């Protein structure tokens, strides 16, 4: 009961935060219209076999959802700085319920970002079958799991001064090297990117529309990062009882 209540308040607070609306909703939507609208008639973007509006729709959905999911780290660092984590530890709220509230509200925000980008995509002529929409969304949501753990980890590792630039830089870098802004070639960058969870997030559209899902390598990369980062995040939380 208390867990549900905490999630409700967490959501309320997220919805009231300006940062979320700017970084996770406003920014990706504006960029989407700026890049995709002039290229709305490009049906095969750089040999990917995917139209420009579709490619950028998913690229910016990856960017926006990454920003939304990683912002939980910013929120955690901020709450640590004011001693809220210590305060919560002397209430009956359980650790896992605290994290659940963080993850659930981050996912709901990511869902909002995805919904608005899909809507914008449709306005720019993106037409997909129901199965393709669903498959793409499913891969996006799964691809966000390691990033959710990364957000929590950074929230406990970094101070409130460091976490903002770190999250912003991380989101931009991951989005860039993973091909959110433009399809990657087949060079070294691509090889490196394939080891990153964000690459597979961006590839959700590719996989859903053409290849019928992530290859085994994609699942493996996402699973490995999920497990590794979750373990580190749990460890960071347990050791983080000090006054900041």
């Amino acid at each position, binding site marked *: *009961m*208390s867990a549900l*209540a*905490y999630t409700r*308040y967490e959501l*309320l*607070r997220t919805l*009231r*935060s300006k940062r979320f609306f700017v970084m996770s909703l406003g920014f990706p939507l504006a960029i989407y219209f700026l890049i995709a609208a002039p290229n709305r008639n490009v049906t095969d973007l750089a040999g990917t076999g995917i139209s420009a509006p579709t490619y950028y729709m998913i690229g910016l959905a990856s960017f926006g959802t990454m920003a939304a999911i990683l912002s939980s780290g910013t929120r955690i660092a901020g*709450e640590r700085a*004011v*001693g*809220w984590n*210590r*305060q919560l*530890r*002397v*209430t*009956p*709220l*359980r650790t896992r319920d605290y994290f659940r509230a963080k993850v659930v509200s981050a996912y709901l925000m990511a869902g909002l970002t995805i919904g608005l980008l899909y809507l914008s995509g449709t306005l720019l002529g993106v037409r997909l079958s129901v199965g393709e929409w669903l498959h793409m969304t499913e891969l996006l949501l799964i691809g966000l799991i390691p990033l959710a753990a990364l957000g929590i980890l950074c929230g406990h590792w970094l101070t409130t001064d460091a976490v903002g630039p770190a999250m912003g830089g991380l989101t931009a870098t991951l989005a860039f090297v993973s091909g959110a802004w433009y399809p990657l070639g087949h060079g070294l960058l691509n090889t490196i990117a394939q080891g990153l969870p964000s690459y597979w997030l961006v590839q959700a559209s590719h996989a859903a529309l053409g290849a019928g899902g992530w290859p085994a390598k994609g699942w493996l990369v996402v699973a490995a990062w999920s497990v590794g980062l979750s373990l580190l995040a749990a460890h960071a939380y347990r050791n983080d*009882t000090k*006054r900041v």
Partner: protein
Amino acid sequence: MAPLALDEAGRARPASGTLREAPAPAVAGVVARGLEKTFATPQGAVRAVRGVDLLIARGETVALLGPNGAGKSTTIDLLLGLGRPDAGAVTVFGDSPARAVAAGRVAAMLQTGELIRDLSVREFVGLAAALYPAALDVDQVLATTGLTGLAGQRTQKLSGGERQRTRFAAALVSGAALLVLDEPTVGMDVESRHAFWTTIRAAAAAGTTVLFATHYLDEADAYADRVVLMSAGRVVADGPSTEIKARVGRKVIKATLPDGGDADLRALPGVAAVERHGEAVALSCGDSDAAIRALLDARPDARDIEIAGAGLEQAFLELTGESRPADRIDTPVAAGRPKERA
């Protein structure tokens, strides 16, 4: 002194088992024994808590008094399970701190705990209420703490005193059996402070156990059943505030005296200590009547003479002062603690 409490608590449990294994006496609220905590800092290890014993009976209101760095907040952290003691053990209502917290029997107002933003005062207090199984009515608590008029205000827009009251409301609304308040009235104006203590008294009268840390001596004096005085990580006195004052029952003679010769002043009958700031001298006196007569004889040039009772502040300084090593202070005061005999 504290070891006495240890003995009394010891008698209340089976002689064989350790504290952790043995069920605590039914009356026990908080039992801490032999707590030690050392922190590693860049300047070297800091022994923040050096063997603290504390026994708080159910329904008792206890003040933890001491200067900054005395180890009050660290002790509170250990009592709440926010830190693990290097040595010693804590039980809260006969259970581990973590379990007492998980059961919603403890609510705390930490010194560093700030409010989270983007919630209204009412929502913030409502959030605290939602976390506790036996929470009180939110509107009633807002009224009690004088926050009804601010209920719709966002937490980030409150003044320091309003924030403090909101934090208090969040602790109070829990309906927890133990309230732990670390310097609760810092930043409150006189009126809020008065209202705060009225509320605490009502909660205590209803059976809530209250532990508060403060360096407002008047508060400890006025509102606590018992005062536990800490200095340099140790409990240096433990008893009713009246007894602490009686123990030190000294008076201070203040006067304006132009030149030195402080050694002569110290030699006057009845004078225990001399402090000088420029021309102002303060004589701490065991027998102020003898001291004033001798002073006027010896120093006819003494002007602006005042004699004042020392009060708890003076007792506090005496007991925690550098002049005497804290661990050598012997307080007969503790022998008179009635509640620990229960």
